[in-house]
């Protein structure tokens, strides 16, 4: 379990903003501002946060859909032959293909209607990665495609259809089949269920869970839906404005969260249960502009427990106990503060 598959070191991605007469770079949107993260083999790491916090950017950087501005992504392959670790952030795209890394790292996108080519047959959509990356063709390829479709719960009848003929859930199944086509060991799932209905969402989540077990996959599950994260993932990283603010096992995050932002996120989820009503921590205001993040702790503009130190000094992501890291100056006192201010019974009832 404690075998690393990916190691992100100070990963940074800035999107530059051009302006002025000469269209020079005048500032940058700091989508990812130095995140450190280890992903272990066989786990499902959930990444949560509001829109614009950089969670999708992190996922896309790992599969190298763009070149990060700075930092390193070390990839430890399972294949014994290639013991040399590759730094995905520095390596050239052509080299990635030559090493066969595209086979091993895959991605499932948010909206299946836009991620599947409307003019390609399902057969060709699923066959495309195999054809380009593994040079398989003919009967072998067709058998492989069919077995993949069966694996995700589709049948032979679906081979010769176009994406528009499917419902949202089935389309997402096709996208999953395409992602597992080249036997990857790591898949970035970028909000795979947020475009789907609840009953279909549960089908896809169960499918992903069973695939993870049978194919020994490692997932990075990017979502804004905390209850989904709780259901699928082993560890959770909470992001805010391009930084990780809290990282811990799922059980720990949901029973003993330490960062005020995590508290607010958890209390903001509407729970489909009428028995325990709890008081909500309603954060005031919006997420600040990532092109001009606030000084000090990035959450201080919305934090209910802000002190002068938070405004001046940026907290580091420090370990509180093994496997639980928090970036907050007042991390020791937050549970007490939250209990005093908001009377959170929900957490105490679960942890007790």
């Amino acid at each position, binding site marked *: 379990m404690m075998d690393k598959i990916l190691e992100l070191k100070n990963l940074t991605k800035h999107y530059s903003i051009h302006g002025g007469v000469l269209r020079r770079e005048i500032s940058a949107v700091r989508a990812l501002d130095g995140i450190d993260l280890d992903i272990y083999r066989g786990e499902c790491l959930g990444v949560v946060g509001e829109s614009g916090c950089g969670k999708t950017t992190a996922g896309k950087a790992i599969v190298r859909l763009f070149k990060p501005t700075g930092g390193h992504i070390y990839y430890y392959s399972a294949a014994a032959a290639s013991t040399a670790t590759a730094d995905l952030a520095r390596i050239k795209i052509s080299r990635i293909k030559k090493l066969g890394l595209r086979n091993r790292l895959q991605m499932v996108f948010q909206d299946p209607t836009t991620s599947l080519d409307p003019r390609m047959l399902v057969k060709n959509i699923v066959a495309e990665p195999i054809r380009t990356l593994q040079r398989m063709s003919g009967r072998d390829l067709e058998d492989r495609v069919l077995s993949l479709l069966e694996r995700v719960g589709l049948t032979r009848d679906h081979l010769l259809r176009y994406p528009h003929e499917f419902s949202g859930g089935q389309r997402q199944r096709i996208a999953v089949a395409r992602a597992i086509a080249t036997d990857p060991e790591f898949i970035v799932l970028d909000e795979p269920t947020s475009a789907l209905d*609840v009953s279909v969402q549960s*089908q896809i989540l*169960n499918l992903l869970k069973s695939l993870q077990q049978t194919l020994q996959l490692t997932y990075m599950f990017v979502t*804004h839906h905390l209850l*989904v994260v709780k259901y699928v993932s082993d560890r959770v990283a909470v992001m805010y404005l391009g930084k990780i603010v809290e990282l811990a096992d799922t059980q720990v995050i949901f029973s003993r969260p330490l960062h005020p932002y995590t508290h607010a996120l958890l209390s903001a989820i*509407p729970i489909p*249960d009428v028995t325990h009503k709890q008081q909500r921590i309603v*954060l005031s205001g919006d997420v600040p502009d990532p092109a001009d993040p606030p000084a000090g702790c990035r959450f201080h503009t919305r934090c209910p427990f802000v002190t002068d130190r938070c405004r001046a000094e940026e907290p580091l992501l420090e370990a509180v106990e093994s496997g639980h890291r928090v970036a907050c100056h007042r991390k020791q006192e937050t549970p007490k503060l939250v209990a005093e201010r908001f009377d959170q019974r929900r957490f105490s009832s679960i942890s007790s």
Partner: protein
Amino acid sequence: MAKLLETIDLVTHFYTYEGVVQALNRVSLVVDHGATFGLVGESGCGKSVTVRSVMRIVPEPGRIEEGKVIVYLDENRRHAGLDLLAQSEAFMESLRGDRISMIFQEPNAALNPTMSIGDQIGESFLFHQKEKLYASVLEELESRDCRTLFPLKQFQQAVYRIAARQPDALILNLLDRIPILKHWQSRLKKEARRRAVEIITKLGLSNPDQIVDLYPHNLSGGMKQRIVIAIALACSPVLLIADEATSNLDVTIQAQILELLRRLKQEEISSILLITHDLGVVAETCDRVGVMYAGNLCEVADVKDLFQNPLHPYTRALLDAVPKFTMEDDLKSIDGHVPNLVTPPSGCRFHPRCAHAMEICREAFPEMTEIGKNHLVACYWAASK
């Protein structure tokens, strides 16, 4: 409790190239005064079509085939209902956004990108409450603090006196066409803007004076949704219909909007009809819930009753399919998928996916029956237990 809105056997069809989509199949629901009614279901189940039929804004090629939409707007004459489907389009226009108003899902699509926020909110005052605006402008002109120059003041007073007495006078129409004289309206617009600032302040947005001059692209998603709510609330409606008002927002912003709706319901509006697919939102905000499936209303109950004692098999399956806070075992999912409404299944529309389907379910459509207090279910299996 007194009824506010009642739909009786509402049927809406869409005439598409593939055939007639039977989007609503005899939907009957009741929204009471002072209640928050939640309508839940998966996409394509007819939630939005129901409220659009109520407002009579069903998009082409849809048509309301039969049924009644009765509103009881008058406080004093509670029993005298008004069938909206029998009213003229002009009457509906005066009703929409005034007594009944609606918040749409996508604030980007609901707001006009070329109009400033103040103009968009002011538009509903100018459309629905012109008389009130005339009266208050006249009052202001006739008060002593008014320091407009001598001839201009007299002219404006004269015009507004006519307008307050007879809003559709011919002379006003004439004045609007004469270049300099048409500026008599600027006071009216100023008044509308003042009211827009007032309502933005009430919704808890900071710097309302600046916001009225901004355009939608200057604002964030949560702020835009608040502006849409401000437009809907401008004329203090009796019924607010929120069609997936928080679905596209982040959880922390969603919490803000839900909190706002709850506060507004206590102070301003009498009832909210909330459409959502998120059962969590329903559990936290609604008093009464209706569950829809494939164009049918299958269960209506008080929110506590529905979550603790769901009777319809679809409601049960839906509740089991949602990830919960305290959960150990696997999520259950509903096998199969939502039927095509061009050729809906015979009898109960849920029977192909139902674990308890009986012979009769395939043949006849179950009627809404009351099981328990205020708990209505359309299911043979639940009724037979």
